């Protein structure tokens, strides 16, 4: 393990170096630090200030449970009925949020299936089912250990792991604010999400085995490593980088990984004509796709509000409620703006753009929903609604085939979310946000680029032309998604 650990460390460092073309240096980190310190109490909530004086500070995602500094204090009043209720309320609520996030898997599956031809449906469903199943197993095996190493105070490492969390969840010590079991559940749902995002970008042409492989790599290594830099209280957290619920950590990493996949795979047959014309391949079931987006919207109420990780005192409750409403406003704004822009540009109110616009708004608000106002949420969502269309047109021009728009939605708007936190978020440092965003985008892109190039090199990446034309359902899984009654 020692070797792997070192190799990984160097790899990470290399990539990070690539991302940081302009030298950020120590100075910048110090600039950022004070901003970060004030971030938590300076959330936009008016009632927070007086409340905090008498309460322990919000156990926000800024300070994930395992390393929570308030552990001892919490332990002190362990036996009071109040603390038991607080514990129960926090954990039960987080469990419900975890369930909502897990539900997003269904949303992604339906959305991707609906936006692709019928002949790849079984493959898409199987991918989305398996990346959750495999994700759970691998995050339990190593991912959780990597994402939450024991880094109290040490911030120069980019990779480490907590040996107690290899194939195990640390037992509840009776003191931490969150129960480790539900913490794991919430985190694993996030890990599976980042894998599933990639799925859409590589739909319709990748071998099923290759899919399982990279999906395993993401949930076991790529996502946990970069996740540890922020939520594992690593170096980016130290710099004061802010990503409340994962615009970058989850979405941008997944979106840019998907971009790498789309580039390495190349477009589907017939997607771009020889004369260079773009020839979109419509999805086979818009009802399924729309259902998927509604399910994702619902799931986001677990994703964002749940990321506060604690609910039971005025500060937390206040933030959680604001987060929920901001999320809704950004989704609505993204949806309306995308529909309107598409209507003006292309002459028709295009449902597929409205759907992507809503997702764009949701992704865009994810990083900053805790530190912006309602009206700022509308602005952030609206801009996301424009960005998603611009990014799609860019992909068209570059002749990159991303069947569901994973990069425009999750990659671009994920990056936008963290940048918006720097622009609108009180006490957030824009430079740090830009650097952090760059790091995550580059990390997602380059790590998976390596994986996809390697798979391609050994001929295990893309199905044959014949198989692709026949459809992955028959060629990879030997079954139709919609057999006629008589067959």
């Amino acid at each position, binding site marked *: 393990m020692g070797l792997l650990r070192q190799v990984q460390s160097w790899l990470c460092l290399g990539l990070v170096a690539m991302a940081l073309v302009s030298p950020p240096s120590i100075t910048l980190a110090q600039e950022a630090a004070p901003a970060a310190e004030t971030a938590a109490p300076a959330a936009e909530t008016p009632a927070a200030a007086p409340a905090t004086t008498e309460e322990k500070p919000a156990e926000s995602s800024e300070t994930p449970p395992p390393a929570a500094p308030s552990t001892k204090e919490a332990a002190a009043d362990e036996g009071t009925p109040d603390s038991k209720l607080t514990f129960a309320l926090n954990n039960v609520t987080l469990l419900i949020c975890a369930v909502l996030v897990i539900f997003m898997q269904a949303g992604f599956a339906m959305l991707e299936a609906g936006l692709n031809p019928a002949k790849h449906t079984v493959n898409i469903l199987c991918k989305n089912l398996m990346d959750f199943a495999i994700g759970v197993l691998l995050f339990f095996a190593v991912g959780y250990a990597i994402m939450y190493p024991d880094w109290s105070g040490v911030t120069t490492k980019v990779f480490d792991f907590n040996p107690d969390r290899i194939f195990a969840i640390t037992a509840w010590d009776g003191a931490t604010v969150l129960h480790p079991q539900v913490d794991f559940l919430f985190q694993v749902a996030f890990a599976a999400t980042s894998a599933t995002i990639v799925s859409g970008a590589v739909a319709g042409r990748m071998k099923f085995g290759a899919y399982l492989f990279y999906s395993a790599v993401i949930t076991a290594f790529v996502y946990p490593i970069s996740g540890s830099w922020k939520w594992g209280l690593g170096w980016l957290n130290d710099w004061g980088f802010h990503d409340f619920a994962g615009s970058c950590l989850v979405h941008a990493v997944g979106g840019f990984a998907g971009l790498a996949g789309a580039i390495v795979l190349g477009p589907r047959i017939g997607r771009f004509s020889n004369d260079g014309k773009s020839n*979109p391949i419509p999805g086979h079931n818009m009802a399924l796709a729309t259902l998927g987006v509604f399910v994702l919207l619902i799931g986001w109420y677990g994703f964002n509000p749940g990321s506060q990780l604690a609910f039971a005192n005025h500060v937390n409750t206040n933030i959680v409620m604001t987060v929920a409403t901001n999320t809704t406003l950004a989704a609505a704004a993204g949806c309306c703006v995308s529909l309107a822009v598409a209507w003006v*540009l292309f002459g*028709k109110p295009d449902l597929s753009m409205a759907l*992507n616009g809503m997702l764009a708004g949701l992704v865009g608000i994810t990083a900053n929903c805790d530190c912006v106002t309602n009206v700022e949420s509308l602005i952030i969502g609206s801009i996301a609604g424009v960005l998603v269309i611009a990014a*799609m*047109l860019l992909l068209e021009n570059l002749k990159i085939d991303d069947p569901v*728009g994973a990069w425009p939605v999750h990659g671009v708007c994920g990056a936008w979310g963290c940048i918006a936190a720097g622009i609108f978020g009180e006490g957030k440092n824009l430079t740090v946000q830009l650097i952090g965003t760059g790091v995550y985008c580059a990390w997602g892109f380059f790590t998976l680029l390596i994986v996809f190039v390697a798979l391609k090199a050994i001929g295990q990446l893309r199905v044959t032309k014949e198989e692709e034309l026949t459809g992955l359902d028959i060629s990879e899984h030997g079954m139709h998604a919609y057999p006629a009654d008589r067959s």
Partner: protein
Amino acid sequence: MKLIIAIIQPNRLEAVKDALTEVEVFRLTVVDCQGFGRQKGQLGIYRSQEPSVNLLRKVQLQIAVNEDFVEPTIQAIMSAARSGDKGQIGDGKIFVLPMDDCIRIRTGERGSDAI
């Protein structure tokens, strides 16, 4: 006996059925199909892109008729299947095929009685 195959726009089906009823053609078979002809653009946009000209949804009527009914059937279809007054590209075609025999499964009747 002839087998008349007519390819028409899906939204004209009801009108054509009514017109056929008026010339006393009551039996027909309908098949969904897709046409590739001179018409363009039914599939306007998808994710902001216009798909290249492609197969458009059509409906095919198959009507077995005795000789006397051939012309009335053709006229009925023609009048009812045109979009607007002058017709549009994409309104479709009628093919008339010779037919050797016709059998009614229920009774075993054959020939023109079975039509």
